[in-house]
C-alpha cells in the first residue's frame, strides 16, 4: 500500500464509521444466521472444510485447541437441571464476522489483513509473518493459525486425498494466520461472470459453502447494498441500528416483535457483517 494510494483512496481501505460513511459502491457482502432455524448439525462446518481446504488436524491437536475450523458450531448447554439425553442446548454457528471496523486489521504490523472494497476482511497469506496480534485482538477468536506445516503433515490429507482439494483455494503453509473468507473464490467468480455480462451479481447467484450445505436454510448471504436482497431484508430485523436516526427497539412494539436481529458484541463497535436472528423457540431437544 503506497502512501499516495492510501491517502487518495482512504475510504476504500478504512471506514471511519460504516454507518455514517457511504461505505460501499456496488457490493457489501453480508450474512444473516437464523438461530431459530439452526439445528446444530455441523453440515456448514463440514462444507467449509471441503470448500476451503481446511486441514483435519486429528484428535490430539484438536484436544490441544489447534483445530482449524473456520466455521464452528458452538454448543451452550441449557442450565435447567436436566441430564444429558434430555438436556437441551443452544447452538451458535461462529465464523469470521468480517467486521467493518475490524480490530484485527489495525494491529497487523505488516498489513496482511485488510479491508476490501466490497466489505470483506481479507487475509493475505503471503504477507503474513505470523505475529498473531490479529488473533490476540479479535473479540470473537475466529482466526486460526497454522501451528504446523499441515500440507506435509501425515493424516491431514492422505496422499490420495490431495486430489480432492479445491483448486481455487490456496493450501496454506506453516506459520500464517487464516480465517473465514466468505468463500471469496466464489464471490470473485460470480463478480467476474457478472462483469463479463455487464451486470451486477443477482441476489442468490452466489452462495457460500456453509449456506449451500445448511439443511434448514438458516444462513442467508448476499449483497447488502441491494435493498431487495434477502440478506438486506433479514438485516432489517436488527433491534438496534447504530445510527441514531434508525434506532428500533423490539420492546417498543406491543404484542411481540419480529426484531430478532443482533450483532455479537455490538458495543465494541467493530460493526460485524454477520447478523444473528435470535432464537424464539424452546430448547432444541
Amino acid at each position, binding site marked *: 500500500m503506497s502512501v499516495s494510494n492510501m491517502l487518495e483512496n482512504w475510504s476504500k481501505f478504512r471506514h471511519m464509521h460504516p454507518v455514517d460513511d457511504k461505505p460501499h459502491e456496488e457490493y457489501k457482502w453480508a450474512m444473516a444466521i437464523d438461530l431459530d432455524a439452526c439445528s446444530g448439525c455441523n453440515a456448514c462446518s463440514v462444507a467449509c472444510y471441503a470448500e476451503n481446504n481446511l486441514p483435519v488436524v486429528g484428535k490430539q491437536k484438536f484436544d490441544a485447541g489447534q483445530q482449524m475450523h473456520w466455521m464452528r458450531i458452538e454448543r451452550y448447554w441449557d442450565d435447567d437441571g436436566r441430564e444429558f439425553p434430555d438436556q437441551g442446548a443452544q447452538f451458535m454457528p461462529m465464523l469470521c464476522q468480517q467486521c467493518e471496523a475490524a480490530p484485527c486489521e489495525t494491529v497487523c504490523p505488516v*498489513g496482511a489483513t485488510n479491508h476490501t472494497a466490497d466489505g470483506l476482511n481479507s487475509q493475505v497469506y503471503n504477507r503474513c509473518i505470523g505475529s498473531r496480534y490479529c488473533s490476540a485482538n479479535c473479540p470473537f477468536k475466529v482466526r486460526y493459525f497454522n501451528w504446523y506445516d499441515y500440507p506435509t503433515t501425515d493424516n491431514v490429507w492422505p496422499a490420495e486425498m490431495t486430489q480432492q482439494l479445491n483448486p481455487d483455494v490456496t493450501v496454506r503453509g506453516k506459520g500464517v494466520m487464516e480465517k473465514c473468507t466468505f468463500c471469496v473464490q466464489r464471490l470473485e467468480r460470480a463478480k467476474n461472470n457478472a462483469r463479463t455480462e455487464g451486470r451486477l451479481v443477482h441476489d442468490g447467484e452466489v452462495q457460500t459453502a456453509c449456506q449451500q450445505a445448511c439443511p434448514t436454510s438458516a444462513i442467508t448471504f448476499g449483497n447488502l447494498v441491494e435493498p431487495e436482497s434477502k440478506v438486506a431484508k433479514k438485516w432489517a430485523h436488527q433491534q438496534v441500528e447504530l445510527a441514531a436516526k434508525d434506532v428500533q427497539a423490539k420492546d417498543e412494539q406491543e404484542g411481540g416483535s419480529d426484531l430478532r436481529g443482533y450483532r455479537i458484541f455490538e458495543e*465494541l463497535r467493530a460493526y460485524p457483517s454477520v447478523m444473528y436472528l435470535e432464537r424464539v423457540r424452546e430448547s432444541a431437544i
Partner: protein
Amino acid sequence: MEKDIRESIEWAKINGDVLKSLESPRPLFWVILVIALSMFGVGLGCEIYQYQIGMGVANLNNPQVWGLYIATFIFWIGMSHSGTLLSAILHLMHADWRKPIYRFAEAMTTFSLMTAGLFVMVHLGRLWQFYYAIPYPSERWVWPNFQSPLLWDAMAIFTYLSSSVIFLFIGMIPDLAICRDHLHPGWRKSLYTVLSLGWEGTDRQWRNFRMTYLTVACFLIPLAVSVHSIVASDFAMSQQPGWHVTSFPPYFVAGALYSGCAAIITLFVILRYVFKFEEYMTLPILKKIVRLTFAIAMVWTYLNAVEFASVWYSHDEASKAVLIQKATGIYAPFWWMMNFCGSVVPFVMMIKRLQTNIPVMFAVSLLLNLGMWLERWMIVSPTFSHGYYPYLWDNNQWPTLVQWGIVFGSFGWFTLLFMGFCKLFPSVSMYEVKEMVYHRSLALKHTERNLAVNATELAEKGAH
C-alpha cells in the same frame, strides 16, 4: 555516613584493578560462562526444533496465541531500563555514586534489549519473513502497517538499542584508550586501538567528549520512557479486557525500572565477587541502589493498585471478570506470588541492617525479578484464557518444555553476552572513578581546611 569510595586510592591502582578484570577474573567466571553456554544451547535447540516443526510444539492454541514468549519479551525490555536510569538520568542529576556501577548497568541495557529482540523473532510464525515489518523501499510499494502498535514497538526497540549501543561505546572511549596503552600487543590491543578512535586525552577531545556524552544522555532518556510506553501500547491499544487499561504505559515503565534495578543488584553482587571489584562496588553504593529500588518498588505497587482499582470501579464486566479470574482461577498461585514478590518482599529492603547484607540482597533481587517476570506473564495469559468470548473461556494451555526451554535459554544468552562484555571491556569506568576519587579528596581537603580555619577563628575569638 560511610564513604562511597576510599579517597586515597591511587590512579595507577584503579587502572591496575580494572585492567586485571580483563585478564584474570576468579574461576567462578568460567563456571558461569559454561553454565550460560549450556543454557543457551538448550534454548537454541528448542528454537531450532520449533522453527522446523512449527509453533504448535510450543503448545500455543487459538485463544492462547502468545504465551510465555511475549511475557518474557516484556520482561527483557523492562530490564533494559535501569541502565539508562543509572547512566543518563543520574548523570544529569550529578549523583556521583553511580560512577563505579553505571558501565555494567548500561551493558545490561544493551544486552537485555538484544535478548528481548530475540523473543520478537522467536514468537513469529514465519521468522524467515520478519523483514516484512521493516519499511524498506521495494518495487511493489508494500509498506508495513503504521497503525500497528507492534510496528511502533519494532521501531522503538531498534532506536533504543542503537542509541544505547552508541551511548555505551562513547562512554567507554577514554577507558578503551587506557586499555590500548597498557595491554600487551595482541588482538586485544588492536581491537582497543581501533575502538578508542585515536583518543589522546587532549583538552579539545575531552570537551567534545563531554558534550557528546551529555547530548546522547539527553537523547536517551525520552527514548527509555517511550520504548516501554509503546510496549504497553501493544496491550493498552488493543480491545481486550485486562489489556485495555489507560494506566498501562506508566505502569509498564515503573515495572521496567523496578526489575532493572533488581537486576542491577544481582549483577552488582556477581561482578563484585567475580572480578574482585570490592574496592569500587562498595557496600554504601549497594545501600543507595537498594534504597532506590525500594522507592521504585513502592511506585510500582501503587500503580499496580491503581490498575486493579480502575478495573474494579470501571464496571466493565469483562475486565472485571479477568481480574477475578487472575485472583481465583488457575493462574491464582502465580498472581498472588507476583503480588507477594513485587509488593511484600521489597519491605526487606527497609531493614537498615540488611541493606548491605550481600546474600540477603542477592536473594531479594532474584525474588523481585521473579515477581516482575510473573507480572508480565499475568498480564499476557489470563486475558487469553478469559477474554470476551465465552466459548473459549477457561482455555488453559500450559506451556510445553519448548517454551520453557527458550525462556530458560534466553537467560543463558544474556549471561553469555554480559559476562563476555565484562571480560572484554572495562566494566568499571576508570576515568569516572578517578574523577570521583579526585572530587572526594578535594572535598575532604576543603572540609579539613574549613575546620582549621574555624579553629583559628575560635582561637582568635578566645584571645579577645
